[in-house]
């Protein structure tokens, strides 16, 4: 499978990359690890006459944890997430999630920026970033702006990012309390049939805060405020978890595909969320 022909660019600065995007408009795409885009180009589902490789942009790399804030550059690979001890301290749910993405070779190339920016409903990091209430940093010809992960996704492969903007990284608060990412997949390398991201805190034996988001159960990642609210103030017993699962069902809209019919996906979504809440609570 050979992709269509394209011109290749390797800019050395963000302004240079933004300017290239501006010049070529819809005909240009940026590439980081390429493990979503290159397969699409090989299948000729993506036509990219101008390919802008971001690997030379050092501003887009690195993981930092400072003053209670975590910043991930867009070029941080899933492998770097898995191996970062600072991140495992600051937000351990990242490692747990990245370990469930694809396989070692793909994690060596696939980046967190590509994972969140592509808008593929199957990707795991979008729901996780909604769970963490992350902000995405975008740079375009008009300057820089930030968009909350919870406001970023419009539809499958459609996001708030404009065609002439580059997603440069993401930021979220250092996490406390318990966490879990539970993912059901048919085999290594598959997307989720259903997955749940849970981050919660405990005070006086009760749930103080809870954030819940689901993967691959709608055409966008599904942050469920109602599911989190159902847990707050409870001691996370079975009745509270059932209420959270019921509330979550109102925020997803799965469609039938080769991973199963809608009823099955709703069932698996409930199982994943219930397991994730129990595990997060045990760690809180």
């Amino acid at each position, binding site marked *: 499978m050979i992709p269509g022909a394209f011109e290749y660019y390797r800019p050395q600065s963000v302004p240079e990359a933004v300017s290239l995007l501006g010049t070529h408009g819809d005909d240009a795409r940026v590439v980081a690890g390429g493990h979503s885009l290159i397969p699409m180009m*090989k299948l000729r589902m993506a036509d990219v006459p101008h390919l802008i490789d971001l690997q030379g942009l050092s501003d887009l790399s690195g993981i930092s944890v400072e003053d209670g804030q975590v910043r991930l550059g867009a070029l941080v690979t899933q492998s770097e997430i898995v191996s970062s001890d600072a991140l495992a301290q600051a937000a351990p749910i990242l490692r747990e999630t990245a370990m469930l993405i694809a396989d070692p*070779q*793909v994690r060596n*190339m696939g980046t967190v920026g590509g994972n969140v920016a592509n808008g593929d409903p199957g990707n795991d990091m979008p729901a996780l970033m909604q769970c963490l209430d992350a902000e995405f940093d975008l740079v375009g010809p008009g300057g820089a702006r930030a968009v909350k992960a919870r406001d970023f996704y419009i539809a499958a492969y459609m996001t708030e990012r404009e065609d002439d903007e580059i997603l440069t990284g993401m930021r979220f608060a250092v996490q406390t309390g318990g966490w879990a990412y539970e993912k059901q997949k048919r085999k*290594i390398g598959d997307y989720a049939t259903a997955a749940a991201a849970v981050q919660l805190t405990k005070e006086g034996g009760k749930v103080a805060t809870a954030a819940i988001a689901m993967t691959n159960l709608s055409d966008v990642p599904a942050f469920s405020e109602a599911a989190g609210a159902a847990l707050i103030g409870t001691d996370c017993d079975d009745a509270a978890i059932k209420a959270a699962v019921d509330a979550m069902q109102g925020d997803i809209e799965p469609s039938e595909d080769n991973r199963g019919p809608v009823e099955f996906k709703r069932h698996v979504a409930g199982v994943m969320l219930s397991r994730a809440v129990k595990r997060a609570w045990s760690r809180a």
Partner: protein
Amino acid sequence: MTEITLTVNGEARTIEVDPRELLIHTLRERLNLTGAHIGCETSHCGACTVDLGGKSVKSCTVFAVQAEGAEITTIEGVATPEGMHVLQEMFREHHGLQCGFCTPGMITRAWRLLQDNPNPSEEEVRFGMSGNLCRCTGYQNIVKAVLAAADEMNAAKEAAQ
């Protein structure tokens, strides 16, 4: 066409490539390194695994131009003039291959895995090799071969000290 320089198995190679050319094609067709295989072409099977800048990657999903300036090791660079690599010996010893199609990818991946983790558990080998598929389903002996190679390499290291 774009001129790129790659260091392949220790040797600098400057070649002209089409930007849309995948690294696996550059290696196989321009550099005549046909050890890495084209299997699924969809970044699932791992037959095309090579080492790029110290990391295992699937060379069917990397453009050669992206690898400009990088160091690459293919299965051809794993053996030495003195003989086969311990991993190759152990794959033979433990029947770690049947049809052999996945073997270059398996060994190139295991070669990096054992550098990252010289003393892996069986579970770590299975997880670390999970990006490589064997359609003969010969996984038991592949895992045995990798674990045996780790033991041999560790024993050789100890003997050398």
